[in-house]
């Protein structure tokens, strides 16, 4: 065997190992989803069979029907959508405003205020949890989705991301606007905001994922089952054993995660690029 042939052989073996590892792990990561998708069309008797079965027999939509027969489930979907909508809208508007001011405008105390905000990122949420519960309680906003949303509509990491983005824009366009007599607020709405679409998209997607999946906040600040969001509602349904069989919970889990999974499948390139910019979900 010539060295060249040997090298080619090694490379081929290496490719085989690579694919074996990557495919094995792809199966490991995807299996819970595939398994739940299949089981959501089974009866509980079949889904709990040992050894596991793969073809639903009989094929049943009963699990999904049970979910939607329950008045609470559609309500939980609506509540989650409302909560996520408020959080996304609040973050897109308020953090872009703040990010623009911190990046582009001069005012006294700018750096101090910005680092004061950033240092809040170091504080674990459990430190502020009880006091915030008391504040909300005093404000009469317990069990209120708008009250809960108030806690999250200006996320510090969104401000950081927006500031980074506005800082990266070139100076000339803002100077040209200023020479044309465009004030700082006008420049924000007519120049900065339209240019910031990619960053706004990243903020919106991250906040959507975060708020749609949020658990501890809704668990503490929402009290009555009709105000629950999906994660809290499903854990409540599970702990109260509203069903003796498990398949409706699986079906409910799939319905609840469908929006985030679809969003991810559609926007994955964009989202993964977002991780590269922000270095993680913070």
């Amino acid at each position, binding site marked *: 065997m010539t060295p060249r042939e040997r090298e080619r052989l090694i490379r081929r073996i290496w490719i085989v190992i690579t694919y074996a590892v990557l495919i094995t792990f792809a199966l490991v*990561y995807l299996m819970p989803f595939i398994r739940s998708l299949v089981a959501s069309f089974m009866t509980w008797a079949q889904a*709990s069979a040992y050894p596991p079965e793969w073809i639903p027999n009989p094929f049943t939509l009963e699990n999904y029907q049970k979910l939607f027969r329950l008045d609470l489930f559609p309500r939980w979907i609506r509540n989650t959508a409302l909560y996520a909508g408020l959080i996304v809208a609040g973050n897109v508007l*308020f953090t872009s405003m703040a990010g623009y001011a911190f990046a582009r405008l001069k005012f006294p105390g700018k750096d101090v205020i910005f680092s004061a905000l950033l240092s809040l990122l170091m504080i*674990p949420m*459990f*430190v*502020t949890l009880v006091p915030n519960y008391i504040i909300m309680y005093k404000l009469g906003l317990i069990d209120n989705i708008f009250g809960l949303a108030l806690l999250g509509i200006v996320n510090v990491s969104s401000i950081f991301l927006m500031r980074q983005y506005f800082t990266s824009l070139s100076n000339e366009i803002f100077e040209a606007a200023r020479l044309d007599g465009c004030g*700082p607020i006008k420049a924000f709405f007519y120049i900065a905001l339209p240019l910031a679409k990619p960053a706004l998209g990243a903020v919106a997607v991250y906040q959507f994922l975060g708020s749609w999946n949020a658990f501890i906040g809704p668990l*503490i600040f929402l009290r009555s089952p009709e105000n629950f969001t999906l994660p809290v509602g499903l854990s409540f349904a599970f702990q109260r054993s509203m069903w003796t069989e498990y398949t409706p*919970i699986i079906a409910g889990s799939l319905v609840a995660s469908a929006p985030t999974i679809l969003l991810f499948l559609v926007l994955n390139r964009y989202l993964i690029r977002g991780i590269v910019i922000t270095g993680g979900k913070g």
Partner: protein
Amino acid sequence: MFSSFSSFYEKSRNKEIVAGLTLISIAVILNLVFGYFAMFFAFYLSFFKWDYIGEMQFVGLQNFEIVIRDLIRGLHGAPYLLVPFYTGLKNILLYTLIVVPIQTFLAIVLASFANQKIRGQQFFKVSYFLPATTSSVIVALIFIWLFMKNGYINYVLTHVIPGFEPVDWINNKDYLLFAIATVAIWGTSGHFMVSFLAAMQAIPREIYEAAMLDGAGPIRRFFFITIPMLRPMVVYVVVMGLIGALQMFDLAWIMAGANGGPGGAGYTVALDIYNEAFTRIRPGVAAAKSWFLFAIIFTTTYLFQKKYGRAMR
């Protein structure tokens, strides 16, 4: 009133100052209230005994004393029901010790396999990342079913590992924490894998080419180029992993229950803070415990960063 304000605004030479302060006002006010005020209130609260309704009663350092007593009794081997904070702390440290190294290692390995000229890289990225986009509650609910005694995971393990006997993961106190750790690793390693992949693709190709000319094989290139170049990302991922693992709540809440499951095996510090505040109605003790949690997170991440360099930002 309004016109005088607007004329002030129009004429002011300090237009930019007014605009800047206006634009940041909402962000600053909300963070002052729910961030800084809440933080100082937590500090204040930790010196008081209170039930949310009656008078607040100053008790000095008693709340901290409760926590320290709990820790000392725990070290002397008191049963888990009597020492919730000690139980939570013990579990969460073991959990962090399992989860953070494995998820970081797995993320690096998968990223370096995927970082080659291969077809379907996008497919692998999407599959690995998918668990990270799904709510931890939903993930935990699905895994409870997969972890059942005659569930899918036991079935696979009996076929993969020779001589493996099915285990009741969720109801056995020796296995519960490992089951939770497995779910956490499954849920987050893919996210970190994508971070590593991005960092790897930013390493200049020339370095690898030079090494190949010098005869370095793929394994040598991995250990002598990839790993050192990835160091800032490794630090970042470990720090993020530490912060997340030490505060673990959702998975334990679902998989073990609010009381930590059999033998308190799934009890965590975060669950204990929740129970203190909302079940035992002792917000002062909850505040004191949250400061302990903060101290633990701060020290571990600080020590790690000090030893291995600063995290990227």
